[in-house]
């Protein structure tokens, strides 16, 4: 009963999916102890950030049916908020809060402006306009180098408590040293869990149902009496705010931010790939997809390197299997998944369970 409430009554509805989600949750919860090593922990942290970012994008794409390419802009605003305030105000919690508050405020205003402006134009324009706005913002971020560090980005310090130099216990616990980095990981973990549950709450509320109605048939939703414009804008703003929080999480983990880390168009493409492969219109799909993607991004390259070496006799095959071409294979997977299972992994699993 409690679990049902916690998940806002949106159960996985597939035994395999439930199993996957539980395994995923446990793996992330105990990642520092299960997967030793700096790289593994970074991968786990990146997964947490992407789960939030992708779920926030799903709010827009999957639930409301709006294609936006400006999502990484809000992600970047969150990351720059933390970066700029921490490098100006010094490593204290006040700076983190100020940065978070300021970036949320900026995202709110910007997303409201884009949302209201886009109401004047056709829905298809929205995708293209956001693409233009996002590219302008990226240029702006690299041009205001006094403020944002330009192309080099900003490296900054955070409060002692969550920095690697802080050790709160002499003895390692289960072979893991108890330091600030561990605390930082769990800060992200808690944040990610809370944010994902909050998003689940939103999409399963009456508000979320209206969004889905708009996605399915805008004209009918309007005819029933819902102000489509208001709902769309609210969804855009909410999604932007969650993305901002995801960006702040990224900056807190990396203690660095630059245009390529949080603003680049590549990240936008990654997010799009994850949403579609995981399953649009299911917050769980964002989580499953993010894990699959980040793990593939981090480890598929090693696998391809092996394949490329094995195929070294055939130069063209070796070139196709080169570890730098991992995105090619993901792109193929993406096209195939739009082709054959448009509902993504989660949709497929649910459809199988429903039979």
């Amino acid at each position, binding site marked *: 009963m409690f679990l049902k409430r916690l998940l806002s009554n949106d159960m996985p509805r597939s035994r395999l999916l439930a199993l996957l989600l539980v395994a995923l949750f446990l793996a992330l919860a105990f990642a520092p102890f299960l997967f030793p090593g700096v790289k593994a922990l970074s991968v786990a942290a990146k997964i947490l950030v992407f789960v939030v970012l992708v779920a926030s994008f799903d709010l827009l794409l999957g639930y409301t*049916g709006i*294609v936006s390419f400006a999502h990484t802009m809000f992600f970047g605003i969150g990351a720059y908020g933390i970066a700029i305030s921490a490098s100006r105000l010094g490593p204290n919690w006040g700076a983190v809060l100020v940065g978070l508050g300021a970036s949320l405020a900026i995202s709110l205003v910007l997303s409201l402006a884009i949302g209201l*402006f886009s109401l*004047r*134009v*056709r*829905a*298809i*324009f929205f*995708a*293209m*306009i956001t*693409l*233009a*706005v996002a*590219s*302008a913002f990226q*240029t*702006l971020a690299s*041009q205001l180098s006094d403020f944002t560090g330009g192309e080099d980005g900003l490296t900054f310090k955070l409060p002692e408590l969550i920095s690697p130099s802080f050790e709160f216990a002499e003895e390692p616990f289960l072979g893991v040293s108890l330091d600030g980095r561990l605390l930082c990981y769990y800060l992200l973990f808690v944040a990610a869990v809370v944010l994902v549950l909050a998003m689940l709450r939103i999409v399963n509320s009456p508000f979320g149902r209206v969004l889905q109605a708009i996605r399915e048939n805008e004209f009918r939703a309007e005819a029933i009496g819902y102000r489509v414009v208001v709902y769309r804008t609210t969804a855009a703003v909410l999604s932007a705010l969650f993305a901002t929080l995801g960006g702040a999480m990224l900056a807190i983990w990396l203690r660095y931010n630059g245009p390529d880390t949080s603003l680049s*168009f590549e990240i936008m*493409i990654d997010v*799009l*790939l994850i949403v*579609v492969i995981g399953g649009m219109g299911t917050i769980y799909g964002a989580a499953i997809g993010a894990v699959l993607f980040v793990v593939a991004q981090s480890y598929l390259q090693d696998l391809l390197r092996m394949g490329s070496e094995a195929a070294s006799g055939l130069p*063209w095959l070796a*070139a*196709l299997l*080169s570890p*730098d*071409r991992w*995105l*090619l294979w*993901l*792109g*193929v997977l*993406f*096209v195939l998944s*739009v*082709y054959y299972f*448009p509902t993504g992994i989660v949709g497929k699993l649910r459809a199988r369970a429903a039979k």
Partner: protein
Amino acid sequence: MTKIDFDWKPLLLAPILALVALPLTGSFSTWLTLTVAGLAMGMIIFIIASGLTLVFGLMDVLNFGHGVFIALGAFVASSVLGLMGDWTGSGELWRNLVAVFPAMLAAMAVAGAIGLAFERFIVRPVYGQHLKQILITMGGMIIGEELIKVIWGPAQIPLPLPEALRGSLLIGDAAISKYRLLAVAVGVVVFGVLAWTLGRTKIGLLIRAGVQDREMVESLGYRIGRLFVGVFVVGSALAGLGGVMWGLFQQNLVPQMGAQVNVLIFIVIIIGGLGSTGGALLGAVLVGLMTNYIGFLLPTLTQFASIFLMVAVLLWRPQGVYPVANR
């Protein structure tokens, strides 16, 4: 659109923009240089955008992978021009043009052929579904970009202009680069051929009729499906041609150039009204002029100039300057 109710107001935008810029730039010769440069840039942008607006306007396909054909055209041209070193290196204009012409043809042929495959495997399953079109053509672009990296390598490669096309002509005090004159000529030809084909030939008539009422035209015995595949191929080939022009304009190529150009061409076709060839031409010229004037007056704002322009136009006409009816 009949001639009687032709909407001439948007056409005034370009001269107004030029007239506003005249006192701001200070000297007439600078203004002339900037204006011709802007027109030429506009023509190049029009060539790369024309294919996209054709595919959208006629087939209702939102091709976010259009940039791949642009990059592909430019890379093919660089290979062809690389093979013809003694023709491009020669100082005689006609030999240079003879070298550029097959490069353009090869670029168009390859881009068109890949467009045929792209239509079959990427676009065909998602006709009529805009959301999926955006997603799947985006996926197609990723694949295409990566394949370009496999074939030509991930690094940027130079694409120098042939000897005789470098430098500029002096008209009074105004310097006008020779390549830009070529660009204007090519752009005018492309626009002329498109307008003539769509407006004056039987194929154009059938295409327009097919857009209006597909079943009716098919029941008369014409295969609209085949015709539309042809439109897609032509759109891709035009992107390839645009890629050659843009590549020679930038003089160096990166595999990501398609995605970079995408932003610019989206702005252009949004201003133009998404699907209208004439609108795209006007949008491209406006963007070209604006970019050149702002680049001279306020260089830091160059990147934003075209976006300001788009926002301003959309506030005036939310559907773009020449919206395509029935959509």
